[in-house]
């Protein structure tokens, strides 16, 4: 494997590094070169740490040469969402509001652990402001775009992480998920993403959105890669009062077998997740094929209905905006105009709920947890489409609004109940945009998710497909995955900037 043929998966790259086929310096250099070529179009990075990254890559190579092996992340280029503190640079949360002194010179716990595992952090990645809302062209932050079609939204709020993994700017990245912000960009960008159980990963050093809902987790090409990432940074820490004091299993231990899912029972909920007005016509059939594949792998598939679905989705929204508003109220009073337009709309809505409404939402979350535990007494996993639609264009976002689009997205239930959920690519719509399968498990059973996702990905290759990067180019002209990463001609920056301004201004005015 040459440096110009950047490995697709973290797992492959880790093997190549250990086989002496590739050095971390070459790997990181290739990733940075790809960012040089593509990031102006994609808006992935807020800040790059090229010099530090190359120094850490050299250190990783020296460690390999000395026989020091810190695990599968050693020497691997990894990006971090810009709401986690990284000592090499500022944390902005893509906001003019966050005090630059917050987190200055410090690492979030997750970042500390990534560094201890030998990971090479290449930079800080685009997010929606404080992990909510939409990009705002009036603010001085990169405008994220989806490498499958740069007229479309890469999903949020971990936009840069999803787009960057898909386009090969790094092999894995850190996202956060409060209502779907790991799984939505993973789905829309055609990669894998894992939201761990609430409390599995300590949040200290991450700017909050919803204190009782925030989950830090990985995005990467494959479920196996996500398991490798999670193994490096899961586990309790006294600096996070929400972190759960449980031992961390080896999330890759279950992958040594033959990939059979015999003995597993998987519940499928179509009633709550399919049949909406804005469903992509391909979603139901692609989802059926994914479920058939799980069945072919030996799983027993049963139909079910996720309990209290609508109520929990409402409880999530009330909880999220109330918790966010508590954090932001004073700044919103004084600096309303410094917030992005969509943030003002979402977080400002936290003023419209009472304390009793908030508590009632927490009572409903408990009701749902009890009911869901009964459901999980009968099944091991629950499968749904991650979203019933593909990545919307920025024009569609303008027309339907974020809340309209969210009606077709089925992630937020799992944030509210705290169970872990894995998403993996499951196919494409007629326009060549990715569709995604979501699997949820009992609390702290991330290893089972990784095992099921890995089994699925051993027999499918959707997660290995490569996005074309031309603006709005049709994808049907060439076989998907036929093209090496990042070799499309670049769009003139002036044209890109103009397109960003026009589409984003329309959204902001909606």
């Amino acid at each position, binding site marked *: 494997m040459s440096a110009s043929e950047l490995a697709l998966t973290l797992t492959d790259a880790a093997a190549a590094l250990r086989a002496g086929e590739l050095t971390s310096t070459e790997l990181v250099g290739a990733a940075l070169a790809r960012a040089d070529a593509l990031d102006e179009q994609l808006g992935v990075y807020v800040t790059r740490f090229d010099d530090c990254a190359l120094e850490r890559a050299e250190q990783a190579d020296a460690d390999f040469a000395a026989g020091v092996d810190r695990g599968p992340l050693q020497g691997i280029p990894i990006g971090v969402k810009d709401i986690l503190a990284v000592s090499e640079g500022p944390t902005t949360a893509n906001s003019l509001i966050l005090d630059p002194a917050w987190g200055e010179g410090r690492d979030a716990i997750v970042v500390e652990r990534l560094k201890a595992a030998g990971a090479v952090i290449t930079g800080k990645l685009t997010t929606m402001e404080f992990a909510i809302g939409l990009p705002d062209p009036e603010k001085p932050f990169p405008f994220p775009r989806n490498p499958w079609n740069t007229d479309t939204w890469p999903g949020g709020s971990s936009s840069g992480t999803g787009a960057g993994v898909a386009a090969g700017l790094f092999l894995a990245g850190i996202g956060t998920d409060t209502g779907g912000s790991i799984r939505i960009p993973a789905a829309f960008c055609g990669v894998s993403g894992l939201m761990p159980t609430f409390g599995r990963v300590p949040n200290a050093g991450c700017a909050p959105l919803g204190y009782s809902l925030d989950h830090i987790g990985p995005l990467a090409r494959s479920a196996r890669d996500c398991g490798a990432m999670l193994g490096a940074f899961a586990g309790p820490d006294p600096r996070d009062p929400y972190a759960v004091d449980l031992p961390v299993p080896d999330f890759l231990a279950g992958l040594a077998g033959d990939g059979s899912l015999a003995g597993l029972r998987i519940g499928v909920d179509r009633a709550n997740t399919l049949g909406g007005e804005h469903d992509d016509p391909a979603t139901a059939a692609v989802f059926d094929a994914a479920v058939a594949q799980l069945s072919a792998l030996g799983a027993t598939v049963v139909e079910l209905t996720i309990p209290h679905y*609508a109520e929990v989705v409402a409880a999530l929204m009330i909880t999220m905006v109330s918790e966010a508003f508590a954090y932001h109220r004073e700044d919103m*009073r004084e600096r309303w105009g410094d917030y992005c337009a969509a943030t003002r709309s979402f977080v400002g809505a936290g*003023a*419209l709920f009472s304390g009793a*409404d908030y508590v*009632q939402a927490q009572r409903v979350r408990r009701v749902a947890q009890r009911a869901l535990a009964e459901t999980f007494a009968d099944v091991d996993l629950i499968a749904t489409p991650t979203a019933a639609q593909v990545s919307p264009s920025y024009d569609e976002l303008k027309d339907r609004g974020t809340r309209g689009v969210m009606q077709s997205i089925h992630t937020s239930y799992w944030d509210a109940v705290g169970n872990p959920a894995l998403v993996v690519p499951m196919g494409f719509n007629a326009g060549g945009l990715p569709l995604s399968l979501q699997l949820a498990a009992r609390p702290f059973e991330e290893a089972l998710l990784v095992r099921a996702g890995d089994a699925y990905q051993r027999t499918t290759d959707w997660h290995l497909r490569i996005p074309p990067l031309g603006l709005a180019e049709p994808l049907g002209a060439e076989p998907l995955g036929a093209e090496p990463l990042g070799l499309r001609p670049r769009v003139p920056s002036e044209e890109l900037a103009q397109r960003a301004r026009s589409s984003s201004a329309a959204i902001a005015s909606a």
Partner: protein
Amino acid sequence: MALTNETAAVDAMLDAAGLSPAPAEREQLLQMYALFKPGVEALYALPEARYEAPALVFQAEPKLTAWGA
């Protein structure tokens, strides 16, 4: 009448919170309130929640270490 009440409620809550949105933003928040209100009422209507304790945890003696300490 209901619309007038909702408008008054939203204006009062925004005022109490000290927020001063532009007219178009106030209109958005009004729409959002109308959108969310049935969902909020549905939470109170859930029979199973009648005697349920909220998913809140308070520890009298928390084990806290400040991040960065």
